């Protein structure tokens, strides 16, 4: 069976500086895959290439939905990538601060709905039905993530941990095949991290695949099915958590790097 997401030879140059160098990576259906590496290794750049925010210099991005045809994601605009089934969160939280929590999630439904200007003005039956579905779907996601009590708050007024969860909720609302999480545990306390661990497992159990960038090694090791390690834009190792733990290249790359287990 083909992997759900396959990246082949992905390279990205910024005016002569090679940020990503022939990167290969696979994510299989239902897996949690982690991407780790020291700061500046190019992990977020990789996410940006994957989601269409940057146009990669070379390489192929292939997405094969279960039972569907393989599609190339390279060169697609970000919104179309999302439509194909990749949804992401951001390292430095990019919510819509002056919109309510519920609205933030409703935005996620945008690419799965169709109401046009005329529909919005005349509010025909289909639009009304669609709007109801958007609200219902968003509310159910929020409930799942424990945000039901704050649906009418502005996103900017939420505490930090809740903002992180809201970002995940918003990404989930796009009905993704793969969820891309960029350092979801950053800045969380141990209690919140534990909850996040459970949350990610729950999402996986619903059949989604997850690609995760994370510095919290405890979380990575406990969650991941497969780990890719990057340094200087290159893949230096891959394997199961146990393999990675003992890989000499990884240890070398991380030497001096703060392996915070908190």
């Amino acid at each position, binding site marked *: 069976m083909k992997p759900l997401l396959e990246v082949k030879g992905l390279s990205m140059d*910024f005016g002569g500086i090679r940020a990503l160098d022939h990167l290969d990576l696979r994510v299989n259906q239902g897996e949690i895959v982690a991407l780790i590496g020291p700061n500046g290794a190019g992990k*977020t750049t990789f996410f*940006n290439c994957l989601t269409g*925010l940057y146009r990669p210099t070379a390489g192929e991005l292939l997405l094969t939905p279960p039972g569907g045809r393989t599609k190339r994601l390279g060169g697609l605009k970000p919104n179309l990538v999302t439509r194909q089934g990749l949804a992401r969160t*951001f390292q430095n939280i990019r919510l819509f601060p002056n919109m309510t929590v519920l609205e933030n999630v409703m935005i996620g439904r945008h690419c799965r709905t169709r109401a046009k200007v005329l529909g919005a003005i005349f509010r025909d039956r289909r639009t009304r039905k669609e709007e109801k579905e958007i609200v219902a779907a968003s509310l159910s996601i929020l409930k799942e993530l424990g945000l039901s009590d704050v649906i009418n708050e502005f996103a900017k007024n939420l505490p930090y941990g809740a903002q992180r969860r809201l970002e995940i909720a918003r990404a989930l609302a796009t009905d993704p095949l793969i969820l891309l999480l960029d350092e979801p545990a950053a800045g969380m306390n141990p209690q919140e991290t534990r909850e996040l661990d459970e949350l990610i497992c729950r999402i996986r159990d619903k059949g989604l695949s997850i690609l995760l960038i994370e510095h919290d090694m405890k979380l990575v090791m406990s969650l991941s099915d497969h780990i890719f390690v990057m340094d200087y834009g290159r893949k230096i190792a891959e394997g199961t958590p146990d393999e990675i733990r003992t890989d000499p290249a990884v240890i070398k790359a991380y030497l001096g790097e703060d392996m915070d287990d908190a």
Partner: protein
Amino acid sequence: MDYFVELFFSGLTRGSIYALIALGYTMVYGIIGLINFAHGEIYMIGAFTALIVSTVLSIMGFPLPAIIILTALAAAIWASAYGYTVEKLAYRPLRNAPRLSPLISAIGMSMFLQNYVLLAQTPDFLPFPALIPDFAFMERFAGVIGSSDLVILITTTVIMILLTLLIKFTRTGKAMRATAQDRTMAMLVGINVDHVISVTFILGSALAAIGGMLIASHIGQINFYIGFIAGIKAFTAAVLGGIGSIPGAVLGSFILGLTESFATGYVSSDYEDVFAFSLLVLILIFRPSGLLGKATIEKV
């Protein structure tokens, strides 16, 4: 051929005028990324201050060289003070606001200053005394280039060289470049960013005031509205050259001045401004970084 040379010089004069204003736009944009809409008004205020001071001095019976020097000084000082105050009142509080807030504030400032001068002085055109005398040795070239054209050309060149030296070699210049590169980083290495931004506004305003004085003397009259049109043209020039780049601003100004001049000479001046605006629109669409500017990638 003569006709070509004549048009060429008239284009150079125009270009120099735009350059003196465009430098201020480009410096401010380079440092805080703001289109300082009120810059044209600072130029206008410089011209008005020059008019007032020179008239007062000439009534008091000062000799012409003294009038010129004192007028230039007064215009530069007061325009700088306005530039400094505008920055402090309308832009500094918005330093961390969304990008459009300071721009809207700048548009407001521009309207405010225009109407302030209209109300404080007059809505009518005022004649501006010819501060630059007709040099005897220029007589031979009278048909091609006038004395004031020459003075404007030389002044622009000198100012541009001085400014480049200042930015390349002085401490302030280095601090300005550092702030333009990365404001947070500059702050961390101990540069007083507020101070640097103020200096930029003061410098840009002083240049605009000198420009205002020279142009007013060249054209012979001013009113409260001269800043708006000149400002937009100079901004076009700055964008054409690559906003944020000082040689770019000068290059862009000369290109705009020359094209306007040749377009008028060989085609028609009916659509002069349409042409300038279309040029602006086209550059922004197809090459927003201008001729000498650097393209930037937005960080995610």
